[in-house]
């Protein structure tokens, strides 16, 4: 089956800054693909090149088998695009805004149906200026759905939203996928990438540093768990502590973090007792201890030594 979105060797520079440094993607029809990366990784630049809004300095782009240079008009009819920063006119109502966007497309959905899909029937006649952040975001996504797109591009669809509003956006994306739509989304929320995406590409400094289904990426860590703890600062820290920790059975790696230590472990039931024994033998005391399941965030940390939110 041909790809829905494909690019190879993509490069985009802004003066001296190389925003995208040779990037390849291949997204299948019906797939939901996530671009995950910290601030400035090049997510927006990549997606805007794919959307035809930016000219790449090098590389090939094909969307739905078409090229921007020759088939721009036909392509725009088939894509739904949500930009990271667009703000809509404050003094138009939700319905007026959707009607406006609907009019640009030769074929599309009835605006009433889209309002229902967005859960904004009750706000149809409300001005944009009177919507909550989550409602605005849903309307913005609605504007990219009225044209009945085959591919939906979402650049940070839930940044700045509270958990409930984020879940409402996820539902809209799910329903779009339920009808066979292809989605490319960017996010720096690992949970969002995990929940929505069939596959994710982890991006750093304009390059793909890992790509695959979220679970597979996490399993490449070889360690499904993370143990975080802090020592009582009064006690001081033994020399060669990191080596000591990494030598513990069941522990794969140890890293110093702000305010403590973080261990990745393949099995909790061997790592935890050995950690406790080490503490007892060394005579140091723990001021905190938590364990959790490893996530894409840990994949990013193990690949780059940085957190997604460090920027």
């Amino acid at each position, binding site marked *: 089956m041909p790809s829905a979105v494909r690019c190879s060797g993509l490069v985009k520079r802004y003066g001296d800054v190389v925003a995208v440094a040779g990037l390849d993607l291949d997204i299948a029809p019906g797939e939901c693909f996530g671009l995950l990366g910290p601030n400035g990784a090049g997510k927006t630049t990549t997606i805007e090149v794919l959307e035809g809004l930016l000219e790449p300095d090098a590389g090939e782009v094909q969307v739905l088998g078409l090229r921007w240079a020759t088939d721009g*008009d036909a392509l725009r*009819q088939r*894509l739904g695009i949500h*930009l990271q920063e*667009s703000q809509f*006119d404050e*003094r138009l109502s939700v319905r007026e805004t959707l009607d406006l*966007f609907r009019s640009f*497309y030769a074929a599309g959905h009835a605006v009433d149906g889209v309002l229902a899909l967005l859960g904004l029937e009750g706000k149809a006649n409300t001005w944009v200026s009177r919507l909550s952040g989550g409602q605005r975001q849903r309307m913005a996504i609605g504007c990219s759905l009225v044209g009945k797109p085959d591919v939906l591009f979402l650049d940070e669809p839930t940044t700045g939203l509270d958990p409930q509003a984020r879940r409402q956006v996820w539902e809209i994306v799910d329903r779009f996928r339920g009808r066979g739509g292809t989605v490319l989304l960017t996010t720096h929320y690992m949970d969002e990438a995990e929940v929505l995406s069939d596959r994710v590409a982890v991006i750093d400094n304009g390059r793909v540093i890992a790509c695959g289904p979220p679970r597979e990426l996490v399993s490449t860590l070889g360690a499904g768990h993370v143990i975080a703890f802090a020592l009582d600062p009064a006690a001081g820290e033994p020399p060669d502590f990191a080596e000591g920790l990494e030598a513990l059975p069941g522990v794969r790696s140890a890293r110093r973090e702000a305010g403590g230590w973080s261990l990745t472990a393949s099995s909790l039931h061997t790592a935890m007792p050995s950690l406790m024994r080490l503490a007892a033998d060394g005579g140091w005391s723990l001021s905190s201890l938590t364990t959790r399941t490893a996530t894409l965030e840990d994949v990013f940390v193990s690949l780059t030594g940085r957190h997604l939110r460090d920027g």
Partner: protein
Amino acid sequence: MADARRSRHPVVELTLARFRILIREPEAFFWAFVFPILMTVALGIAFRAAPAGIVPVAVVQGAHAAHLVAVLEREPSVDAFTIGRAEVYITLRDGRAHLVVEPGTPPVYRYDPTRPENRLARLLADGALQRAAGRSDLWAARDEPVATPGGRYVDWLVPGLLGMNIMSTGMWGIGFSVVMQRSRKLLKRLVATPMRRSHYLIALVAARLAFLVLEVGVLVVFARFFFGVPVEGSLGALAAVSVLGAMAFGGISLLTASRARTAEGVSGIMNVVQAPMWICSGVFFATSNFPDAVQPIIQALPLTALIDALRGVMLNGDTLAVLRGELGLLGGWTAASFAVALRIFSWR
């Protein structure tokens, strides 16, 4: 969820959206409708023809002051009173008296000859005092009062305000809102849809013209009913002049907005563009007040041409053929500004 209802044409939707934004903006409403009416009322009342002019004349206190006041009071339009010697300058400056008479033989007149009302006061007072001193008039001419409609300041002012309004609404309504859409990345969002750029621009103009109908209509009707300001020429000519003026300023406004990225940036440019025309183009006082050397520049300004043409239609009843010079100039501004604006316009 298939679309049963056919959606409207994008130009219609874009025009509607823009028109709604314009009329829903309270500031735009104030500047386009309320402000010109307030100006008309304020200036129309302040500069209404003085009721058969009572001319205040002051006499400096002294030996014959009371006699002089009595003589001056005999002149029907003169109101005479005495003041202290120290008050002469202030009285004249504040306009409490248009002339100060110092008793003596002959008396001394103190007044500011650059003020027409002061010169009038001198003529009246001098006549009255000379007659009292024994001069006799050779005849008493017969006065025949003539009313000259369209000759009051308010008649002259309203076309000026109309022109100024067409300029500023055009500048703000088009330029400012385009830059807002650009800075809020809405323009970029629109360009990401299949929207045709020409549709966007046509809608800008269409919404502007729809707003123009209201804007011109309200002021002309108000001025007609409350101040009797005439429209001597045809309404068709008034409409044609207004539309051409709106187009010229629409183009200039699009030009100022074609690259600006921030609201502050474009406000600055628009003020710089408009300020010389507010002052020089004859909104509040005639362009002939400026020296001959700068007249070629003033006459080339689009607002000068627009206001001259509006006054021609409203006050003189001129036809479009008579106004071809002004209309040609406005057409030139329209064509040139749109040509450059479209060439350099940034869609992102």
